[in-house]
């Protein structure tokens, strides 16, 4: 019973997260890429 539940939870989580990526990657991928490209100098301790 518990094993079946874990399988169901695992599958559900996988689908939910895959849907998140599928729906939002188009909108937010570039924003994240900009975060990588534009360094936060103050975070590096540079004034």
């Amino acid at each position, binding site marked *: 019973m518990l094993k079946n539940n874990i*399988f169901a939870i695992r599958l559900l989580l996988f689908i939910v*997260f895959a849907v998140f990526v599928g729906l939002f990657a188009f909108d*937010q991928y570039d924003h*994240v890429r900009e975060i990588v490209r534009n360094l936060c100098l103050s975070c*590096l*301790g540079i004034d």
Partner: protein
Amino acid sequence: MKSIGKIRLSTQIFTFILVNIGIFSVLETGIVCPVFYCHGCPAAGFACPIGSMQNFIAVREELRLFSFYLLGSLGLFAVALGRFWCGWACPFGTVQDIFIKIRGGKNIPQLSLAPWTKYIVLIGLFIAAWIALDSLFCKVCPAGSLFAAIPYQLIPFTDDPQGQSLIEQTIGTFFWVHVGTLVAAIASFILVARFWCRYLCPLGAIFGVFNRVSFLKIKLDDSKCTGCRQCLEVCPTRIKEPEHIGNVTDCIQCGKCVEACSTGALRISASVRN
């Protein structure tokens, strides 16, 4: 099973090379890396999930307070491998493993703090980003110190015509904070194996929740276990019972227990069904 350590070392080295593919700037991506590595590193090719999430919270651009793309990516990584990322791939974990090797002997006192301290760090850093409108955790993060702040001082920037480093003239307060947190972190690595992973890592806190349901995990066959507890002797995160291996949030799934198990009761198992 002795080869597990070698395979693990190989995946750690491979990951370190992979996360640095941004040295070719065309390969700087918007993909989240499932390991604790600062995208402020001059060569970083992937985004730090913790740093990026703070950025979304701090910027609050167009009401995108929360990035479902980041959450989804991180969730997929977590459901797939749980904390295998910590034990087999994380560059900051690799650094801690190096210190375990350096310090050698086993007669070093072990702390026994509550494993939920990392959840306080996780929640606290998001609250701090919300209040300060800034990625505050990044300013004290020891991984940022090691992989970004200090390398930036070492790599000569020759943007200005005189070839002087622009950076060295502008070292700010937070650089010294970075140095301080890194020194404190290294001291903790020497005193307590995988201290960061066990008590402070916010990414490990997220992955730890998924240990129980991840596709790949370490499993115990009760019928083969003799109760010798050799697996617990070698565990860097000091898991207390064999039944907890692979399931509790502290377990980084490094596989040292699998290597140590003489009866084959522990194994790394990839399974969708159970």
